[in-house]
């Protein structure tokens, strides 16, 4: 809402010398977010005066007709002699009053006016147009002032309001009343404790009746409806300059006097009005909900199909307005409209809000109706409008008027007198509380320690004791709220899952991974480029109804698309050796979920069943950790060649994460997109019930995936369900640390290529028994010596007992048992 300060000052007398900035600061302290204080016209300086055109000499021989004018500017030029001024406009005649910028003045845009030679004459200034003075957009020519409105030599600054401070206020959705000069002036009066003169305080002569016939079919959608008319209006009467100026300052374009007046009253009082050509309305008016199939061509020349939820104004021909949103084209006020019918109504907020969204029509009217309009304002606003119509456009106010009123008086809110103080933490005297509530327009009645408060009609937002508390506290000043040091209490610290997330992030970052926070939006194409099969559950993703990008309407079911895109971006920026990670949720629709969340009541807490239903409707959102690596894992340098990242780095990253969670991964070969079918590990944790749970995959990406993304060759990736890995972690029990000597034994076992090393190791561990401290695979050999299709795995076994030095025979027996177990389970043969 843009509020010219001079307009606001009509309704309250601010202290002498109050600047617009001070006023803004006071309003901000009260809760009106003044975003800017614009000093309109501050760039206009120097002598600008009213002049009368005495004589016009038409100059010819130029590309366009030019006038050389003698203009009387009174004593403004110091000589009393007429100024000679060249002018290209033609919309004026001798004797007209105009606005003259004398030499030495400067107009917006740094346009300095001087006496200069042009078109063969000396021009001593300029006759101004509205655009040149930045008053409003007008290309019709120069300003011609109405006769009698001023005299030559009058100061144009005051006359036209060339300089004006305008407050631009971002009005919060609860304060619909502040979308008017009236509402902001009321706040300003409260801020300064000055008297407020309500512009809606209009004496309405006569009693309702005899107006245009109208009925309201459903009082629930419109509880006050007022129609008032003017007859014999001059449709060509111009809008006065002061009104044009104020509308321009509030950001409204001047259209015609009748329309300008409805907009002016809208800005002044906050009441949306509609003006019809009364002669275009057919028969009685009815306010009702639209009927299925009804249509209306609105003022913007769009033919709209109406929704049964739309409130419409209808005559015998059908709907003529989408109530509160936009009027119909057929009844539009026009150049031939001499009889004008003004509507002022109070429509149900939610209907207007829904209609505005449905028709994608947000207007000055709908914005106000949505936020709540003063339900007692309609007669005053309609009266104000018809009086302006009569006064400025001729014609006469029709004697009768229509007033349908089904509003109910507002119920009192009971509030403990000390409630505002208990909310603020400040002890407000009871009288002060009552005084502050009265200041915002409430009727306050004390009843012992309770105040019975009836909020004013323009504050539909005040419904609860805390709403009233806020009014008191903001008027008393938020600055007075004390700062009470937080009470110490015993917290629980971070949860294990929260600690794990941090630990994993730190570990990865410390080992050369950079964290990425990708958007979770993906498209079908992402699954295609990842070679995800058509029936893969990952393709079952939640879809956004209104995605930012139509190609990415889905919510990720894997972290890889975002990570790979970030990888490609970094490669594109000239980086070849990269390691990236992300920790974040994926969104997995629950099989069999309804896809529609319930909407429990809000006047009580949800029941356990309702909570369960809410959770069941939501997707599973496990937090995952994923990492990708490309190029070198160990960088090359002066020390020699680097080491390229391989599938093993991806698997080890997964294992590291598991170790951080105090658990261990079981690794098995798998074939799973987007990984290389021969270089993909499926990762499992123990599920606590003797079984296993799949928690992710790691390995080298499929060459086709690498090619499709344009990734560096042999890019590797890992993705792991961090929540599941964390849940598998067990508290650590202290190990028995033996001080007895270690016994080392190396064995080389030849196995078939198809035997996973993990199986051999498991057999060795289990066969060796508890004397085995550790097993380490230190060499893998393939070649002629071990034969085709076989490989030799060399293990270092470490034996140690908790309570003694091991004897040679014990060590040998344990080693032999280990080898025997490996032989039995994996067909391993001890290499000679």
């Amino acid at each position, binding site marked *: 809402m843009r509020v010219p300060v001079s307009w606001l000052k009509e309704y309250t007398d601010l202290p002498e010398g109050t600047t617009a900035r001070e006023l803004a600061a006071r309003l*901000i302290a009260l809760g009106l977010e003044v975003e800017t204080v614009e000093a309109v016209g501050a760039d206009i300086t120097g002598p600008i005066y009213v002049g009368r055109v005495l004589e016009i000499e038409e100059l010819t021989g130029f590309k366009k007709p030019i006038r050389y004018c003698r203009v009387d500017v009174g004593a403004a030029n110091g000589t009393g002699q007429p100024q000679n001024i060249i002018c290209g406009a033609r919309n004026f005649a001798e004797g007209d009053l105009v606005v003259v910028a004398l030499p030495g003045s400067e107009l917006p845009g740094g346009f300095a006016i001087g006496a200069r030679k042009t078109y063969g004459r000396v021009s001593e200034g300029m006759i101004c147009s509205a655009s040149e003075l930045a008053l409003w957009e007008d290309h019709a020519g120069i300003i011609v002032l109405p006769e009698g409105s001023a005299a030559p030599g009058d100061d144009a600054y005051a006359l036209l309001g060339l300089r004006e401070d305008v407050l631009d206020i971002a009005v919060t959705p609860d304060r619909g009343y502040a979308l008017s000069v009236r509402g902001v002036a009321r706040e300003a009066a409260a801020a300064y404790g000055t008297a407020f003169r309500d512009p809606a305080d209009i004496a309405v002569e006569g009693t309702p009746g005899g107006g245009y016939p109208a009925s309201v079919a459903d009082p629930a959608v419109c509880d006050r409806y007022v129609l008032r008319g003017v007859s014999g209006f001059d449709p060509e009467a111009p809008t006065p300059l002061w009104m044009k100026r104020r509308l321009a300052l509030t950001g409204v374009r001047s259209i015609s006097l009748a329309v300008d007046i409805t907009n002016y009253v809208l800005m002044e009082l906050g009441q949306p009005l509609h003006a019809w050509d009364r002669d275009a309305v057919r028969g009685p008016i009815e306010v009702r909900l639209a009927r299925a199939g009804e249509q209306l061509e609105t003022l913007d020349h769009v033919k709209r199909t109406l929704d049964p939820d739309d409130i419409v104004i209808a005559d015998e021909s059908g709907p003529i307005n989408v109530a509160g949103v936009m009027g119909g084209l057929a009844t539009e006020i026009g150049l031939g409209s001499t009889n004008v019918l003004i509507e002022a109504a109070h429509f149900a907020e939610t209907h207007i*809000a829904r209609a505005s969204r449905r028709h994608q029509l947000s207007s000055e009217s709908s914005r106000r109706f949505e936020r709540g309009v003063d339900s007692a304002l309609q007669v005053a606003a309609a009266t104000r409008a018809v009086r302006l119509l009569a006064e400025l456009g001729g014609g006469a106010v029709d004697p009768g008027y229509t007033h349908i009123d089904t509003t109910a008086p507002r119920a009192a809110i009971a509030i403990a007198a000390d409630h505002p103080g208990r909310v603020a933490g400040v002890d407000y005297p009871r009288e002060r509380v009552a005084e502050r509530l009265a200041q915002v327009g409430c009727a306050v009645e004390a009843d012992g320690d309770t105040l019975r408060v009836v909020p004013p009609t323009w504050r539909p937002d005040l419904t609860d004791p805390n*709403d009233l508390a806020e009014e008191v506290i903001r008027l008393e000043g938020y600055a007075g709220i004390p700062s009470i040091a937080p009470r110490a209490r015993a917290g629980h610290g971070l949860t294990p899952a929260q600690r794990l997330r941090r630990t994993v992030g730190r570990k990865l970052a410390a080992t050369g991974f950079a964290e990425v926070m990708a958007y*979770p939006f993906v498209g079908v194409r992402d699954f295609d480029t990842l070679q995800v099969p058509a029936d893969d559950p990952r393709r079952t993703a939640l879809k956004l109804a209104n995605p930012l990008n139509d190609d990415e309407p889905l919510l990720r079911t894997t972290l890889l698309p975002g990570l790979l895109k970030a990888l490609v971006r970094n490669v594109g920026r000239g*980086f070849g050796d990269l390691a990236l990670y992300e920790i974040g949720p994926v969104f997995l629709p629950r099989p069999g979920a309804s896809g529609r969340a319930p909407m429990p009541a809000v006047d009580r807490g949800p029941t356990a069943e309702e909570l369960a239903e809410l959770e069941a409707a939501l997707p599973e959102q496990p937090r995952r950790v994923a990492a990708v690596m490309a190029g070198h894992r160990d960088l090359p340098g002066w020390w020699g060649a680097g080491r390229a990242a391989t599938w093993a780095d991806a698997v080890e990253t997964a294992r590291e994460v598991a170790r951080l969670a105090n658990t261990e991964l079981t690794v098995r070969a798998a074939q799973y997109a987007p990984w290389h079918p021969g270089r993909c590990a499926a990762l499992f944790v123990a599920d606590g019930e003797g079984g296993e749970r799949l928690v992710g995959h790691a390995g080298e990406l499929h060459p086709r995936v690498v090619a499709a993304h344009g990734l560096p060759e042999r890019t590797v990736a890992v993705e792991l369900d961090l929540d599941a890995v964390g849940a598998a972690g067990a508290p650590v029990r202290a190990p028995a640390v033996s001080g007895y000597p270690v016994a080392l034994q190396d064995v080389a076992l030849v196995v078939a290529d198809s035997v996973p090393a993990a199986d051999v190791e498991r057999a060795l561990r289990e066969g060796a028994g508890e004397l085995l401290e550790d097993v380490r695979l230190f060499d893998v050999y393939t070649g002629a010596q071990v034969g085709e299709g076989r490989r030799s795995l060399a293990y270092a076994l470490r034996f140690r007992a908790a309570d003694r030095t091991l004897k040679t025979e014990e060590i040998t027996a344990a080693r032999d048992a280990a080898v025997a177990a490996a032989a039995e389970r994996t067909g391993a043969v001890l290499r000679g």
Partner: protein
Amino acid sequence: MSAPNNSYDPVEVTPLSPDEVARMRDDALAAIAAAADLEQLKAARLAHAGDRSPLALANREIGALPPAARAEAGKRVGGARRDIGEALKRRQAELEEERDARVLVEEAVDVTLPTRRSTPGGRHPVTTVAERMADIFVAMGFDVAEGPEVEAEWFNFDALNFLPDHPARTMQDTFFVEGPSGGDSRMVLRTHTSPVQVRALVERELPVYVVAPGTTYRTDELDATHTPVFHQLEGLVVDEGITMGHLRGAIDAFVDGMFGSGLRTRFRPSYFPFTEPSAEVDMECFVCRGASVGDPANPCRTCSSEGWIELGGCGIVNPRVLTAAGVDTARYSGWAFGLGVERSLMFANGVADMHDMVEGDVRFTAAFGMEI
């Protein structure tokens, strides 16, 4: 070896004569002194102190002397051998030192050579700054609460007193999840972390003291100052006798911990459906402390010479929210706040363009390292 002969005159045993022993010693000392390196010294040791050295051989003759002469001869030979041993030790030390000095110098390297062998890593500053913000409250005894990013509208709006069709709800630029056959799912990408308030109240025993850092979504296009995916830190206290004073105290403690002590804070009345009364909270600019206001010669980039920096929104929990979460409003009241994480990075760490936060460029992330 000769047999002992008591009648034998020691003087007659030439190798044991004082002159001869002295000569052997002098020869040895000369050879030791002449040894130019450890190899030569080793040869000298073998020649003059080894098992077959003249003195060792002479020593064997002592047994052949008459008993009366043995002690003196033994003393003589022993003294010579001791002198040689000491000379060897000394020379050994000297030569080792010389060798070390030479070899270690030869082994010197350029220790200024680059040593980094791993790619530069780092945690995203949004992660680290959100943790830091949360930790300030954890230190005050708060727990860290969480909630899902795809959220039921009931949690995101209804329970927070966003009425259907109210502009406060429609103004939130919400991503809606499509429902079955294109219908309404009543699920959204949460538009703020505030639904965690309701979850915390529903799930936890009272009193509740929690903060909830998290990812939030609005349908803003990515530009220098906006991103559709951003982060907030929610705070919630519900206890008996909570006032705006407690809220202010907590905010002050946060500002103190995060930006330094002595910074003033300011509450401005505002509106949020889930708090009543509501406030926008500003803190004094920690760079210029207001000195840049009205001083065009010394502008402040951090606060745009406003003197104040917007921190976020806060207020007293609307009793309607407590009711919707099943909390007894006659007994309990609470406060809540919401702070922007990206905002904090932009003004405190000078992140100038939101693109950097979302593109995943390693240079950006690595620059922030592990902690902020």
